[in-house]
């Protein structure tokens, strides 16, 4: 695919790696905020290729992982209702609520459908005027405009049986929260390129300044990630803290003004709980009063939610970069992708799942008790 393949060129990757290796002299801890970047790093083994001195910390960048347990429990309760067709991105289906997940709800007769786009859910609503169609609107700033547009269209086209269960989160308040933590180890950020495609970069200079932390906007292909790391370590080694944009081709400084206008119309900023972390002020979006009629939380007054998080799970610490997944005692034993205790073990972008999937070799005890470590890398 054009503009993908070029950024997957192993020859060019070598050159970037060379530069990184040539640059790094001290240990650095860099957080990639976005789960898509975590996926790419581990999928391609990038963390094995960069200098050992550079530690990549996987941030809270998977909206599936950070969706608050209470909201998942609400989603499950709504999806179980016989009149509801519950539409969701595929990622959410295996995320455990307190007692079940959407797969289980589906297996028990709930009409749960995977959609590729929120517009598909709107189409389902038009095709099933007798049913209530609810879309689980999760995501960062990247997914917010599509979801906003879908609510906007539902209002324009007057589709009364459509609603959205909104759990949008915003990246900059999360960065602020992480940096404000007294135990924070993060020294620089790779910012998610597609978040910036929408929002632009105007929210970052303040953070750079406040915390003296370099922030480099990067894309998702291996060369993008490497270039992001390269620019970051250059700053770190030079002792500067600036906002840099390594993803200019898709993330202009102004972002997408049309999308941002719609976001301002459809959503309003709210405090939002992040699973495993807690409430971060101003870190979420909910539907603005104008669109409340399409808010599934209002339409379905679900009560009786008995939310119960695992006591073993340390995903909050994982998400904030305080520990690596395999430092959690449950990792790979009582907690596996098959039977996840925390959301970070569920989504492929979840830090724990990514570790389990691609790093099991090094860090997971074998089921038969043997610990095989191959001489790889």
């Amino acid at each position, binding site marked *: 695919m054009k503009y993908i393949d070029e950024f997957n060129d192993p020859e060019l990757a070598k050159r970037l790696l060379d530069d990184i290796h040539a640059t790094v002299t001290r240990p650095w801890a860099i957080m990639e905020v976005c789960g898509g970047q975590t996926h790419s790093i581990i999928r391609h083994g990038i963390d*094995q290729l960069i200098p050992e001195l550079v530690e990549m910390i996987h941030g809270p960048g998977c909206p599936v992982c950070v969706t608050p347990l209470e909201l998942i429990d609400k989603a499950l309760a709504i999806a179980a209702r016989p009149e509801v067709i519950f539409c969701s991105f595929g990622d959410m289906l295996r995320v455990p609520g307190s007692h079940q997940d959407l797969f289980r709800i589906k297996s028990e007769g709930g009409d749960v459908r*995977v959609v590729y786009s929120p517009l598909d859910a709107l189409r389902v609503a038009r095709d099933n005027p007798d049913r209530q169609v609810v879309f689980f609107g999760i995501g960062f700033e990247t997914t917010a405009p599509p979801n906003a547009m879908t609510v906007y269209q539902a209002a324009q086209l007057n589709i009364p049986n459509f609603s959205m269960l909104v759990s949008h989160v915003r990246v900059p308040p999360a960065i602020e929260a992480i940096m404000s933590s007294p135990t924070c180890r993060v020294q620089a950020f790779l910012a998610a390129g597609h978040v910036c495609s929408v929002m632009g970069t105007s929210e970052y200079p303040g953070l750079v300044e406040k915390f003296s932390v370099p922030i480099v906007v990067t894309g998702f292909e291996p060369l993008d990630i490497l270039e992001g790391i390269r620019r970051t370590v250059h700053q770190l080694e030079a002792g500067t803290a600036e906002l840099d944009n390594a993803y200019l081709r898709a993330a202009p400084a102004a972002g997408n003004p049309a999308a941002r206008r719609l976001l301002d119309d459809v959503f309003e900023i709210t405090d939002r709980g992040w699973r495993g972390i807690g409430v971060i002020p101003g870190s979420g979006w909910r539907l603005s009063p104008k669109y409340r009629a399409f808010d599934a939380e209002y339409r379905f007054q679900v009560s009786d939610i008995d939310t119960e998080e695992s006591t073993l799970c340390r995903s909050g610490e994982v998400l904030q970069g305080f520990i690596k997944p395999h430092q959690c005692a449950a990792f790979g034993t009582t907690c596996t992708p098959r039977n996840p205790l925390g959301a970070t073990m569920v*989504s492929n972008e979840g830090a724990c799942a990514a570790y389990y999937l691609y790093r099991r*070799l090094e860090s997971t005890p074998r089921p038969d008790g043997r610990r095989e470590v191959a001489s790889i890398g």
Partner: protein
Amino acid sequence: MAESTPVLDFDGWSCPVPLRDSPTIVMGHGGGGQLSAELVQHLFVPAFGSQGDAGTADSAVFELGGARLAFSTDTFVVRPLFFPGGSIGDLAVNGTANDIAMSGAMPSHLSCGFILEEGTELSVLGRIAEDMGAAARRAGVAIVTGDTKVVDAGHGDQVYVNTAGVGLIPDGVDIRPQRAAVGDVIIVSGAIGVHGIAIMSVREGLEFGTEIRTDTACLYPLVAAMLAVTADIHVLRDPTRGGVATSLNEIASAARVGVRLTEKALPVPPEVRNACALLGLDPLYVANEGKLLAFVPREQAEAVLAAMRAHPLGEQATVIGECVDEHRAMVVATTTFGGTRVVDVPIGEQLPRIC
């Protein structure tokens, strides 16, 4: 029956196998991944009293009246019923024929069992039966016995097809997953991920335009060409549900060898790669219906590869990895950039990712 002493107590089940995670069947139990494997290992094998190998081979092999037979079954529930390049009818014939061929046998006789949902158009059933007949003629197998059941509307989905089949194994041939050995060269017969992407391109709500058509084919002629080079092929497998990754994991587990894949050697057509990028899928987990994986002793690999490339079904055959004495029972890929990653068994079916 109520009288027999139960071997397992399912009501007060407390055995610590992963199965107890879910007290009910979920979609993943049919996905060909971990959940499927566990169902076989922890439920069917103890109940049926089969040997430990049950479920690891594509077909059962036994002797009857002096003949060494391969015997296999598959049920086909693919939706939609018709898709670019084929239909459930083609799959039903080729799928079982291939499972038989993966033991080195020549598939010869098939049975078919239909579960029809009332209200299904007869013309739909007619087209499927036509496709089955045509596929059987191409594959040189005969559909010799069958059964039809009709279920109430809402208790089926138009047409489900089961096929079972038998084939004769030539003397001197012993092909099974357990024979994978360190040093074996792993060959794939052609482009991977094609069938799964063809199906997804017409799946409701996911539709996309592509030239990709299913690769469904009966692989026996290719197997015959390979056996003509050497009877000593260790393992054959058609990487269907769960894709190449799942098949390799099953073989690595069965033989307790390490499988090392070279990612850049994988023959992934650009459209498959791009569709996967769009949907957040990994081509290694996407289904194939006309490809095989072969584990061949290193000394024979070159000749076998040449024979495969000389056959229309193996023109793009290529070496994708080897069996190693490391990370036994695991599959590890060397990435294009020189890193490594574990290629695990999926839990259930792959879901399109959006993040």
